[in-house]
Every structure is written in C-alpha cells, then in structure tokens.
C-alpha cells in the first residue's frame, strides 16, 4: 500500500501543519468524484461520513471511487443531512484542501431541496407549496409542469392532481427543484405477517436494509446476488403488516418467492397468490410477473387492474433493474403506496437509473459485494476469462461475416465449444452450470455433454423438475439459456461457465456470477469461467461485461485456453 510513513493516529485537525495536509484518506477530485484509499486507517470512518450523500461507483482493491451527484445530495437532504455535514465530512477527511468552488456548489445544490413540498391538504387534496415564491413561478412556467397542476390556491401553493404525484416529482427532479414529498402513504389493507425466525435470523445487513427502507418510506435496496434479497422483502412485509403485491421477473422466480415466504414467515400457502400467465390468483400477498402485467391485448394492458384490485399496503419490485418501461408508467400512479425495489446491480444499459430512483425511491441501502463476501454471507469467487485462439479457418469466416452476424459467429465457434467441454470435464463431480445466449449452441453443448438444456420453450414444470434434480445432485451439469439469468436459487452450483451473452451487458454478467455465489456448505470457492474468442468482438464485449464486477473488486484472471488444455492433458 502507499506507504505514507507513520500516520499519526489523532484526528487530522490535531496533526502538525504538514502532517495534516497529507493525512486524510479521501481525495476530492475536480469532477466531483471522491477517491477513498481503502487501506487507510480512517477509511471506515470516512466511508460512513460520505455514504449518505455520495454514490459508490467503483470498488476495486485499493481506491474506491464515490461520486457526488445532485440526486445523492438531495437524498441526503431527504434523509435529514444538511450541507454543513456534507462539507464537514469532505473537509475533515480530505487529504488536500477541497476546492472552494466545489463546496459552494454542494451548498447551493442542497439548498434547492425542500423549497417545494408536496403536502396533503384537508380541503384540496394533494398540494404543492413553496417557501420561495420565485421557484414556484419558475416551475409553473415550465410546459412540462403545467398539465400536472390544477388551480392556484394562493401565491405559495398550487393543487396537484393526485394521479400525477409521481409524474410531478419526476418532472421537478429533472428541472432541478426536487420536491419533498410529505404527503405520506396510505396504510393499505392490514394483514398480519410475522417473520418466523426459528433457527435463523435476519443478517445484520438485511436488518439494516429493512430499517433503512422503512425509515425512508420507499426506496431501493441494493445487495449482491445470493445475499438474501428475498428476506429483505419478507422483513419489509413483516414491518408493513399489510397486503403486499410482489412483482418478479418470471414464474419460476414467483414460485421461489412463495416457497421462501411460506418457509420464513407466518404466511400460509393459501394466503399467497400467484398472478402469472397460467394462474390468476389474487390473495392478501400476490406475486405477479412483469410479463403478465405488460401483456398488451388490443392496445390495452388487461392486467393492470391488479394494481387496484386490492388496497395494497406495500409493493415489492424484484430485480428492479429489469423494470420494463410500461411498469414505470404504472408505478408513477402508485406514489401513495410504499414501494420497495430490490436489485443486485443497479446498472441499466438504457441509462434509466434515475427513473428508478425518482419513481420507486432513492437508494436506501447498498453493500459492496466484497464486503458481504468478507462477512462470509456470499461465497468467494474466482473469476477467470478463458481466451480461446480461433483456428485459421474460423478467423477467416469471422473476418468475412456480416457485421451483425459477427458476434454470434465468434461466440459460438467450435473452438469455444471444445474449451467449454474441457472445462466441464475438468470440474467433473462439481455442480456446473453452462450459461449461453444462443439456443443452437446450447443444444449442441447439451448433446456433447449429455446434459439437459433449459431454454425458453422448456415448460415451467420441466424447469422445476430439472432444477430440483440439480439441487439434489442427481444431475451435475445443467445447460441454461438466459431464462436462468435471474432469481433462480441453485445453492449447490459451484462452477458457472459462460459461453455467450447478451453482447456487453454488465448486469447480466453480474447476475450470472450471482448464480454461484450462494455460500457453499463446505465453504469452498465458487468458479466463474467466461469463455472468450481472442481478437474478436467477443473479447471487446467481455471487457465491457466485466466492468461492473471489476469495479466491485472481482479481479478477473486471464487464462489461455491452450495452456488450460495442455495442463489438462498433462494431468
């Protein structure tokens, strides 16, 4: 580590003139990123001080990067922090003097929050009021705000159509004048839900996540794959003690949620309904898939009434990073209900993270993957990129392929196939998942490896059966398409081999790694292989896919396929 000599143990302010200047663990950059030296003795204190307002952007081994954004500063305001605390935190831990302009900017940005408030007026319903009249004038002049508001009550307040509560918050955020939402939540229909902590308990970070969410009212909890997000959902339900709507990605995941809820809470099988393509049950706790909600028939969404079918007290969005665009729209209308978003990777390739924040709520809890790993709640993983040299003829075909076919070709070459098979052989006896994008490639692999293939056309019953067999250890190799990207709980999987993917999707890579991160019974390391064709677009996509995990501190090893094969032959 960067040895800055003996560091005095007292607080920076107490150091000597020169010592004080070089002492802090934090470096404030002019582009508003904060660099935190993780091995510094004050790093933990500093992390706690800056966490309320700065977003953790990258967490590789030595220096973590945080970013100060207006959204982050406003969330800090919403959580009760003021500009002085933020400035103090920066000045106290900074190694170099903090640029004055940046401090001024922070104070200015934070002062914009709370000039507008949404409140519930006994006579007029939802009302937007201001403490700063010119601001109200400014935003009312905006064309985007005009359709959302009603009559002006007095110079400082204006009626807001109750249905536009989400819209106006989103619009005001974009205009740079975030509104403080004091209108509160409806309690919803009460329903008794308790956690049944027999022989297990919520982990400390799960507890913190539930508390952070409940205190904030609504928001997003970010936890690594396999760190038990379902239990955070269950914990939140136990706090709400009200009817709950849970939105998940697919039917298998819906069943897993149901299973887990029956096991961990006082809820019984009959109290939990499944609302999917096959079943349409509405119970006090209803689990619905995104797919069924966004099914469009004759230009309308027939299943939308689900949102109004009960007086839901809590809505849980699983895998919130996948929230489809229409659901954003419905969510905007649900601002009076408590909303909990769960995700492992809040990176959207469409860049709509800020919509998630403004509609569901700010990030309420976030834990770096490596930290959870250090606590032993997820398995440590060895990430390996296997570089395959294509044969001469493959290279030629690749060079002549149409641009849009290039990735498909290099991702599915025979050389990769061979290496994949070699890898599976190498880990014989271990529970192995082979994950890919292209069905014909997977079918071929399944044939060669003599392993079942799970893909889109596999029925749910068949899927469940195969997953069960895998969990029981009856089959040790499973070839899966992207249907298994999410929310499939396969605790025994220890090796994942990725042969192809959805181009450069960072969150897909993270989710796939997540499949093997459940802690192993014998505590041994999980392995994640990504088989990549060298000198092709496959390699570029792989580099992009790995970025999220690399920034989370997962250092990929690169191995030459030839060496690997040679080693295998020797052995």
């Amino acid at each position, binding site marked *: 580590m960067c040895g800055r000599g003996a560091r005095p143990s007292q607080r920076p302010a107490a150091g000597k*003139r020169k010592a004080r*200047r*070089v002492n802090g663990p934090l*470096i404030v950059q002019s*582009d508003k990123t904060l*660099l935190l*030296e993780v091995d510094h003795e004050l790093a933990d204190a500093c992390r706690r001080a800056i966490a309320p307002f700065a977003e953790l952007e*990258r967490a590789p081994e030595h220096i973590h990067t945080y970013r100060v954004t207006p959204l982050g500063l406003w969330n800090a305001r919403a959580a009760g922090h003021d500009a002085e605390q933020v400035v103090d935190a920066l000045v106290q831990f900074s190694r170099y003097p903090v640029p004055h302009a940046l401090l001024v900017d922070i104070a200015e940005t934070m002062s914009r929050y709370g000039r507008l408030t949404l409140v519930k007026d006994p006579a007029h319903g939802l009302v937007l009021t201001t403490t700063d009249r010119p601001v109200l004038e400014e935003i009312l002049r905006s064309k985007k705000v005009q359709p959302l508001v009603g009559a002006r009550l007095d110079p400082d307040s204006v009626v807001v159509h109750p249905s536009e509560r989400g819209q106006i918050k989103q619009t005001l955020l974009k205009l740079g004048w975030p509104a403080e939402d004091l209108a509160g939540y409806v309690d919803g229909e009460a329903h008794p839900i308790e956690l049944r902590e027999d022989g297990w308990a919520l982990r400390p970070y799960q507890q913190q996540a539930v508390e952070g969410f409940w205190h904030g009212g609504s928001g997003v909890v970010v936890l690594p794959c396999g760190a038990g997000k379902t239990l955070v959902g269950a914990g939140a339900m136990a706090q709400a003690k009200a009817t709950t709507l849970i939105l998940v990605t697919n039917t298998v995941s819906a069943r897993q949620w149901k299973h887990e809820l029956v096991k961990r809470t006082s809820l019984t099988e009959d109290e939990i309904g499944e609302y999917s393509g096959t079943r349409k049950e509405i119970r006090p706790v209803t689990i619905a898939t995104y797919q069924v909600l966004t099914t469009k028939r004759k230009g309308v969404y027939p299943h939308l009434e689900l949102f109004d079918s009960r007086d839901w007290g809590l809505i849980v969005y699983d895998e919130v990073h996948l929230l489809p665009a229409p659901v954003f729209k419905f969510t905007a209308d649900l601002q009076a209900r408590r909303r909990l978003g769960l995700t492992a990777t809040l990176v959207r390739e469409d860049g709509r993270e800020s919509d998630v924040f403004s509609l569901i709520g700010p990030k309420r809890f976030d834990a770096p993957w490596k930290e959870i790993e250090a606590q032993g709640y997820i398995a440590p993983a060895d990430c390996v*990129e296997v570089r395959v040299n294509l044969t001469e003829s493959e290279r030629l075909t690749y060079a002549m392929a149409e641009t849009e076919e290039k990735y498909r070709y290099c991702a599915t070459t025979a050389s990769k196939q061979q290496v994949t098979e070699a890898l599976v052989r190498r880990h014989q006896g271990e529970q192995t998942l082979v994950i890919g994008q292209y069905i014909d490639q997977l079918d071929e692999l399944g044939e060669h490896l003599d392993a079942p293939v799970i893909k889109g056309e596999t029925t749910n019953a068949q899927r469940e059966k195969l997953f069960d067999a895998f969990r029981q250890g009856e089959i040790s190799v499973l070839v899966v398409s992207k249907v298994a990207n999410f929310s499939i709980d396969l605790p025994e999987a220890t090796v994942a081999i990725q042969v192809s993917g959805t181009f450069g999707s960072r969150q897909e890579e993270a989710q796939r790694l997540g499949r093997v991160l459940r802690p192993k019974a014998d505590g041994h390391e999980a392995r994640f292989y990504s088989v990549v064709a060298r000198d092709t677009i496959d390699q570029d996509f792989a580099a992009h896919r790995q970025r999220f995990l690399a920034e989370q501190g997962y250092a990929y090893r690169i191995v030459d396929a030839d060496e690997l094969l040679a080693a295998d032959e020797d052995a």
Partner: protein
Amino acid sequence: MTDTPRTLAEELRTRTDSGLVGLLRTRPDLLNPVPGDVTQLATRAGTRASVVRAVERLDRFVLQTAEALAVAPDPCPYGTLAALMAGDAGDAAVAAELPRAVAALRAQALVWGPDDRLRLVRTARELLTPSAAHPSPTGLGPTVAEATAGMSPGRLQEILAAAGLPTTHDPVSAVAALTALFSDRVRMAALLDTAPAESVTVLDKLLWGPPYGGVTDRPAPHLQWLLDRGLLLPAGARNVVLPREAALHLRGGRAHHTPEPLPPALAPATERDPQLVDNAAANQAFTALATVEELLKEWDLGGPPVLRAGGLSVRDLKRTATALDTTEQLAAFWLELAYAAGLIASDGEADERYAATPSAEEWLQLPDHQRWAVLAAAWLPATRTPGVVGTADAKGRALAALGPHLDRSPAPEVRRRALTLLAGLPPGTSVPAAAVRARLRWERPLRGAGPGARAAAAPAGGTVPAAGAVGAPAEDLRARLAQWALAEAELLGVTGRGALSAHGRALLGREPEAADATAAETDAAAARAAALLAPLLPEPLDHVLLQADLTAVAPGPLRRPLAEALGVLADIESKGGATVYRFTPASVRRALDAGRSAAELQEFLSTHSRTPVPQPLAYLIDDVARRHGQLRIGAATAYVRCDDDALLAEILADRRAAPLRLRRLAPTVLAAQTSPEQLLDGLRAMGYAPAAESAAGDVLIARADSYRTPPRTAPGPVPDGPPPPDRTLLEAAVRAIRAGDLAATAERKPVPAPAAAAGALPRTTSAETLATVQAAVLTQSALWIGYVNADGAASQRVIAPVRVEGGFVTAYDHTADEVRTYPLHRITGVAELADDAV
C-alpha cells in the same frame, strides 16, 4: 511683510531641499526635463497638464479640500477653509484631518502661502472652480459678484430694495451689500423666514447642485419671489443659478455634502485560520502550475495561428478553454499569464503560430515553487489585462487574448495597492472585494484618465459638454482592474479564500507601497515567497496504485518523467488532487507507437507500482503488443513483379540497379523508389524487356502517345492603330465636346464678393500668429483670422482670444457668437482688427 512670499516661486525658494525632493517625487513630470531654476519649476508646476496630473492623484479628502479652496475667496485663511470643510456645526474628524490635507496640497505645490493666506495655484483654481460648463463636484454655483457681472445697475438696486437693503451709489457696493447679507447667517435666516413654502422647496432642490434651473419668461410667483431678492440670479437666457453664498448659508456653511476625511473601512472582515488560508492558496498555486503546464503540453506540437491583427481567434480561445477545462475568461488569464512569463509567444514565421518558448523548457524543469515564483513575478507588474479580452475597444474592435491593446497602465499600481490593502489586515483575514474597491476609489477618485478628467485637462472650450470632473467609465476601469486583480490573485494562489497568504505577503516585498519596484526586486521578493510556499506544495510521488479494473490512481502529483510516461500509456479519467488513469487498448497502442516495447512497459509499471501489476493489465499490454506492427505500411512509387525469383535476385545483384533503389518485399516482388518510367528505362538499359502494368494488372501497350494541349482559341489579328470609329460613336463624341464647350464659355452671374477685405485669407507665419494671438490675450482685443477646419474648408473668423495653451487658442468667436477652441496649426494667419470693427 517682507518675509511673506508673493508668488509660488518665491515660496518654493524658501522650502528646504527635502521639501523640494518631496515635491519632485510626488510630481515626477516636473523633472522632465530638469528645470533650470526655481522660477521655471514654479512655472512648470503651474502648467495645466502637470496640475491635472497632480490633481488626479489626490485622495478624496485632499481633493475635497482643494475643491473647497477653489470656491473660497483667494487667498483664503485657514479658518475659512476649515469652516467650509466642517460646516457651521463643526466636525471633529474633518478638523483632525484637515491639516494633513493642507500639508499634502502644499507639499505638491498646489497650495502656497502662509496659513492666513492660503492660495490655490491659479491653474488648479481654474480647473476646480465651478462654471456653467464645469459644475463643481461641490455643487456650488458662481458667487453673487460673478453672477451679477453685466447686470444693469438699476436691476441691482431693485434687488437690494426687495431684499430689504438700503440702496447704494454704485454696483460694486450693491454687490458687496448683497454678498454681506447672504453670508450673514442671522439676517439671511430672517429673510428666508418670510419666503413662501414653494420657494423654499425650489432652494432645497438646487441646494446640493447642480445649482442651475430653468425658468419661463413669466416665472411663477414663488420663483419671482426668489428672483426679486437675488436668491436666484439669471444665468443666460431662461436659466437661473443659486449664488454660492446663498447655497452655503442653506448648507450650513459646508462646501461638501459629505466630507470624507477618513478612508472607508475594510469591512466586514472574515477571520480564518491563517494556515487554512495558506493551504488553500498553496493548493490553488499548484492548480495554477498544473494548468499552465497543461497549456504548454496542449501547444507542445505548435499552438494555434496568430490572427493578422494579432492575438488568438475566438475559436482557438474556446478550444483552449475546453482543453484546459475552464471558461474562456479564465483561459484568457492563463494564456496571458504564460505569455507575460515568457513561456509562450508567436514563432514569427510567415504563417505565424503560437508556440512554447525555449524558456518554457527551462521552466518545466524547475521545482514547483520556483515555477510559481516565475509566474508570480511576471503577474505582479504586468500591465496586460486579460479581463478586457472579449470586450470591444473604443473603436469597436474586439480585443483578442494575446492580442494588442490589452495594456492598461494603471493595472500594476491597482493590483499592488489592492494586495497591500489585504496585507494591512491581520493574517488570515479577508474582506469582500467591494470594500477593497471602495477604498481604492477613495484613494484616487479622479485617477484612471477618464474622459471627465481628460476633458478638464484638454484645453476644451465651451462646446465640450463636461458632465463633471469625474467620468463614470474611468471609475469603472479602476474598479474593474481591482476586481480582476483580486480574482487573479486567488487563481494564482497569492490569496486563499480571499485572504492574503504568507507567501503572498512575501511577494509584495518589504516595501509593499513601492509600486516602482525594479524587476530584480520583484524577482527577489518572488523567490522569498516561493521559499515560503515550497513546504506547502504537495511532494511529487514516484508511484501509482494499479487496480484490476484497468485503472491506475496517482494519489497526488507525480514526478514529471513518471507523469509523462503514464500520460502516454493511459488515458486520464479524472483530475484534481489525485489523477485517475485508465488503460485501454488504444492507450497501450499509443505507448507502443511511441517506441516502448511490451517488456519495457511491464517493467515500468512494476517499478512504479507498490502492488503487483494486476494480471488483466499485463494481459492487455501483451495482447496489444502481440498485434502491434503486424501490418507494415511503407511507400513505393513503382514495383517489379516477376514469377521467376532467380531473375529478381539477378536484378538486385546487378550494380546498375542501385540508382533504382529496389527492395525485395517478397520472393516475387521488388519495390522501387523511382517512377515507373524511370524504372522501365533503367531495366531496359540493363538489357531486360519489362512491360508496364496498369493498376488492374493488365499489360500496358507502350506506344508513343501524341501530346495535345487542352482546347485553345486561335489568336486574333493585331492591327496597327485603333479600329476606325463607326458613325454612332463619332456623333456621340461630337455632342459631348460641344456640351463641354458650352459649359466652359457660358457667361456667369457675378459671385458676391466676400464680406472681409479682398476675400483672401490672411497669411502670417506661425511665429507671428502665436505672438499676435498671445498679445491679443493680454490686451483682450479681437483678431481677424483665417481658419481651415478639419474638412479642409477655409473660413475667416473674428475672435477674441481668451487663452493660448498647448497649441490651442480658446477664444470668443464673434462670428459664431460662442467660445470655441482652435488649433493654432489650422490658423492660416491673423490680422488685428481696426478698433471700430467690433
């Protein structure tokens, strides 16, 4: 009485040597050339240009004192002056400060005489005395005597009667009686008690100036009441003026509305920990160095072109600003700073470009604190002001960065003064810029060579509408200079959080007031400042932290060679106290292109990293290196292709092939550096039978091609003389000749003879002209002159010269019936008028 000096010269003669030294120091223009004797010194001290300079340099209170003297009787006892300054009620602060002001005026030879007979030098008096054209800053009008000059004796007696005074025998005593009444507080109060309310309102309006107002031919009763009693006196047609004595009575004897004996306080002061200030300043100093360095790096391969009119184009300024990640205004500052420090300049080539100078190389090699010293020493005395870049000058030309017309001579003085004011505060204390500006304005209310001051300085006549001695734009320049000086000091790290840092104090030197510090002194001060700054600057590091996500973080400034090498090998992602680098295939390729090998790069990274080089990074370098240079590109102008390798080997071995500069690329291909024709000829000469090949590989059929010009027209015949004219042309020509003839020979109406004798302009030599005009000023007689105006039109005028100075004659022009100014060189000649002419 014998020991009372009668003139300024006599008084100067009695002064001590140190007194004279003081005079010459404060008014250095008197030294140029050195006066022959005290009389000459006194004369020169009395010239208008010199007095204007001196007056401009007075602070507000001394100026107010001089203004008060100008409206006081001449000579003026100290008591009278004190009363004018402090008013009837008295003012302790004024009384305390007044001796200083009088002493200052006396030291500058603007006032002379003993305390009971203080005299403002005549030129200063003229400059500051109120008149219709130059209202005084005091807002006082002319005296009763001046305002009633030319009034009929009968009217005067009427006024006396209306004011309740006995009639007198002659106008002089009448004026004296009226003056005495207005100056007598008791009687005047009694008189005003009887005034109608509206009349009092009118007086209140004129009280603090301007003292002039308009009236109609039939004034309203309340105005008439004032006119009757001489409280308003006529000043030209339809204008009236409040006489000075009356105004002074109403003001309680005060010449100024608000005398400002003391400079405005530098407040509100904000106190900070001096160490905090020093650290902030040091941080900014470091940023300044980084910015200038970045500018030099940006322009390393040659900067943008120089505009024909000089300077940098707006687009290039914008581009530079983007490169430096700052605003254009700030980019202009950094550019000018580097320019002033001699780090960048124009290369002087035919297509002129900006580039770094050789001294920039040396500068880059210096330790940080010395580099800062170079910048600071260049900045402090610089007259070029980046603040005006982007605005337009008086002629509407846009001012370009690094371009001409950016010099503002008061800049260094203002800069030094502003910093000196900060230096006067306790360490770590800052005050708002507005307070500094207010103080600077108090210190030099007239300074800045504004139009107002210039109007007073130029021998302007009544035609120049001078709104007052203080011109608004001049004020503006000085205030803006101060504003810029403070902003620049902050940027350069001389100040931190608005307070002067310890090294900033050292930069000002031991005598902060010495604005005329030599370059050597400035450099020495800068070196002392740099020594103080050195420990505060961050120590350059020799290592970075490499991370598996292909980034490297330098947790502080890097040693130069390391920073340079890393800048090539990786892209900078974030700057500030630390630098974040990202390795990409493109950046690694750049390093390989720069001649580094993969092994060198690996070695470089492992030497400068405290942690092992992450495996993905090592892989990235090896992977890029593996493919680097796989394809080779070269230039050839012709090639030889042959299926027989042996034949090609034979050609290569042949000595005669040497001039063809052949090189074997492949067994069957030779590349040549000569043209295909030469190659063909050369090979044929060697006895081979080569065939030319087209781009598509076909054999070209060699046949002598005929050579043709592009389409051309055949030349026409060139006849000996002009072609014979045709009839139409001839007829038109004759008609034109006839018409011209008629115009020349037609009889004209007689032109009326000029009014003056003979119509010719009088002609005299310039010496004669000057002598005659000067004589006319003394005798107050009228002259007849010939004058050519700026458009070249000659005219004759009858003038009564009032003043001759600086090549100009100020005179009452009888022809135009107003006072005008004529440049002497435009007067063709003068002649005296017969006595009865006017």
